[in-house]
């Protein structure tokens, strides 16, 4: 029954995290901070419900590979929006984008 007990604890932990996340986002107005809880909860699901550590080595390779390419996709894709700044181009008040 230790396996079931662990699953129960993880489930309770996930619900508590959800409560914290919803409170941060809805009550305190820290919506962007609440974003962090999502990946944390997803990681708990992957480790305990999906048992990513179980099975042959290929399981961990494929899981890590998916995560790696997701990082590349989002990391490179978001590079331009987060580094682009709008600067004033002159006294006429015209603006220009600077990469």
């Amino acid at each position, binding site marked *: 029954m230790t*396996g*079931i007990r662990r*699953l*129960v604890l*993880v*489930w309770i932990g*996930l*619900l508590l995290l*959800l409560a914290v*996340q*919803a409170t*941060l*986002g*809805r009550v305190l*107005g*820290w*919506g*962007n901070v*609440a*974003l962090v*809880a*999502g*990946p944390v*909860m*997803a990681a708990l*699901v*992957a480790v*305990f*419900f*999906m048992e*990513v550590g*179980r*099975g*042959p080595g*290929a*399981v961990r390779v*494929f*899981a890590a*590979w*998916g*995560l790696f*390419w*997701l990082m590349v*996709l*989002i990391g490179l*894709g*978001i590079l331009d*929006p*987060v580094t682009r700044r709008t600067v004033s181009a002159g006294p006429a008040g015209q603006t220009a984008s600077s990469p």
Partner: protein
Amino acid sequence: MSSSARADGAVEFQFHDRDYQSGTALSGMWLFLSSELLFFGGLFLCWACYRIEYASAFAAATRETEFAIGTLNTVILLTSSFAFACAVHFARSGNNRRVVQLSAATALLGTLFFGLKLLEWSKDIAAGNVPGAHFRTPGQAGGEQLFWVFYWIGTGLHIAHLSVGIGLVGWIAWRARREAFGPGRATPVEIVGLYWSFVDMMWLILYPLIYLAGRSA
């Protein structure tokens, strides 16, 4: 024991033994889920780019979402994922009765999620949160419309995956009624469990993007 139950214990000709066969199935499922992760990843990237570009419009649109229904649905999906993780545990020990019960509970919770999502969609439509000519504030707030494009595609894709999952979980319940699973014969339950939890994971990422991000603005 039915013929399908006998087939669960069989080792196909291309595998040395049952462990090798089971490991190959698990690895294949993880490879598939990795491709699914990148599929959803494109959606998350679009959200991030437009969220940066239209920060205030996205924050305003987030405040229009049905927070209570979204949060309740998250509780439901987390619970369903927990229930099916328990079903995997019981399948390994050959307790098929528990597998039937937990699979049925999982399918019911998934159906409840589906029903609440339909209710939420109807509220969104009634509020005019559908991008296009009939959007509630036509001619302005382009960023808000982009948020709702993300919302409809994201929730639509998720519910499509969930629907497939409900069918798969029902199939597991049907097989378990025929005593199909036991020690060394639980791979189908493990595979479906991976899929169901993955659908849960994608919702855990979508939930704050839709209902929480930008509420501070």
